[in-house]
């Protein structure tokens, strides 16, 4: 069979300037950060990012100048404050933002996932989102005459996903899902192609007895790459926790443009690869402590 296993460099190479992408995860949880770093390294530009609530994933890309448009209901570092690159780009009118509510943009993915071209919602009535988002329209229920706001379906050309396991055919297994996995599932269903990084590539025997943990079947997967701790500094499901210390460093560094460029130089451009990144953020000794349930000192 044709294995889909590639290097990190090869995995994101097909994403060209101007592509429309999504990144699985929710807020600062479970982001595909190793893939995002590589997108930055290959200096992709003018991305449109579709998301529900995004975190450092989008903020990194914006800070690296890779993004021209974001459709989302929020971008936040959660406990670590505002997403500063997002904030700065919005204030300087450097990116286009299409405002949505959380459920309504979820529904845009849901629409695409079931092959619909639009979705009706009631959640935006009375909201200034209706004034500033030019992509909205209207639709009327043919049975009740009720009026809805209509939104276009959201179908990313590429979704970047980091997950615990995949096989070489691109089937992805996630035994460590949290309650937020539903967001990832609908985005994956809505996507045309999926680029997957995983903690570990598993063999067929393993896969055949872990089918109950399937996150997505392999046919839309175009690349599989093994990058342990590929969500760092995000946590990954219930498998490992976010690196709070690194997030604080990130939040501090992103407060102004110069220091953020230094951050990118240190952690993205200036490392030889993902192993170099893991080394620079503290190496194995630091990373092992992030594992779920770890009580060691």
């Amino acid at each position, binding site marked *: 069979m044709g294995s889909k296993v590639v290097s990190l460099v090869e995995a994101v190479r097909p994403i060209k300037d101007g592509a429309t992408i999504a990144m699985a995860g929710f*807020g*600062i*949880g*479970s982001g595909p950060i190793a893939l995002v770093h590589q997108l930055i390294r290959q200096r992709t530009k003018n991305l449109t990012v579709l998301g529900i*609530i995004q975190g450092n994933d989008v903020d990194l890309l914006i800070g690296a100048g890779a993004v021209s448009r974001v459709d*989302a*209901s*929020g*971008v*936040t570092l*959660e*406990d670590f404050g*505002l*997403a500063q690159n*997002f*904030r*700065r780009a*919005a*204030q300087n*009118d450097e990116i286009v*933002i299409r*405002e*949505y*509510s*959380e*459920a*309504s943009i*979820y*529904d845009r993915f849901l629409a695409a996932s079931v092959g619909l071209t639009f979705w009706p*919602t*009631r*959640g*935006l*009535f*009375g*909201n*200034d*989102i209706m004034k*500033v988002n030019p992509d909205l329209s209207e639709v009327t229920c043919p049975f009740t005459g009720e*009026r809805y706001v209509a939104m276009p379906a959201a179908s990313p050309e590429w979704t970047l996903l980091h997950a615990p396991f995949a096989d070489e055919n691109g089937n992805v297994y996630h035994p*460590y899902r*949290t*309650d*937020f*996995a*539903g*967001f990832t599932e*609908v985005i994956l269903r809505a996507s045309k192609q999926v680029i997957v990084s995983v903690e570990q590539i598993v063999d067929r025997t393993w896969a055949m007895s872990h089918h109950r943990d399937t996150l997505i079947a392999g046919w839309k997967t175009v690349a599989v790459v093994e990058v342990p701790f590929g969500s760092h500094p995000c*946590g*990954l*499901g*219930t*498998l*490992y*926790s*976010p690196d709070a210390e690194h997030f604080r460093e990130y939040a501090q560094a992103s407060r102004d443009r110069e220091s953020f460029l230094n951050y990118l130089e240190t952690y993205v451009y200036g490392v030889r690869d993902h192993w170099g990144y893991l080394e620079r953020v503290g190496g194995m000794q630091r990373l092992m402590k992030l594992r*779920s*349930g770890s009580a060691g000192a």
Partner: protein
Amino acid sequence: MASHDHIASRNRYSLEELLAVTLARDFHDRERGFTGMATGGRTGVLIVGIPLAAMALARRTHAPNLSMLYTGHIINPALEDIKGLFESGPTLAAVRCEARQSSADIFSMVERGEIDFGFSSGAQVDQYGNINTTVIGNYRRPSLRMLGAVLLPEHFALFGREYILMEHSRRRFVPRVDFISGAGYIDGPGAREKAGLRRGGPRWVLTELGVFDFDPATCRMRVKSLHPGRTLAEVRDQTGFELIVPPQVPETIPPTDEELALLRHEIDPHGVLLGRA
């Protein structure tokens, strides 16, 4: 609400306890109350910690069948399993609870109108109860871009009612929010209906100074009660618009000994929810 010591120092209860008790008394049995994910800091205390304590208190007093939806997913959690107001995958997954539901369940509950009430905060609230978490200043070139509307549109459009918890200052209590991220009464009577909204909207605004509701005739914010020791002058000083003030402004009813005992010994013994941790 940096000055909440004001109450604690003179009273036998904290501001957070007063707010929790005030909220708890407004909940009915069999209702479903929703809190988002706790993201830490003072906002976490306001829109997750105090609400969870209030719902837990109501369940232990007059509303035993009230359902608490923590992060939406976690139904009636074992509160002792909540270790802090910033949680991520591994810690949230470990919280024991009566039931869990998926994100698809949550959004479909929200869209079906099955949530009775929620809690929110923002950088600004205005005299019509609109709130703003999107931008300060002009939308196209804002002086501050914030996180965005997230689920607030649904809180104010599809929930049965909304409680707003805010720090009370002129900067936050403005005549007109710069962006309506959650729609209150918009610009006055009839505006919600005209916009297509069929239910819900802000019920109260709770601050360190008092509790505020909305005058049915004008839809404008009104003083409902002042916390013990607070004055109308203080409130007016910290509010950027004219509040409706009824002839009689009562004092917010303080917690009873029984309520305090429940909060301190059963519901939040380690102060995780009510900000004493």
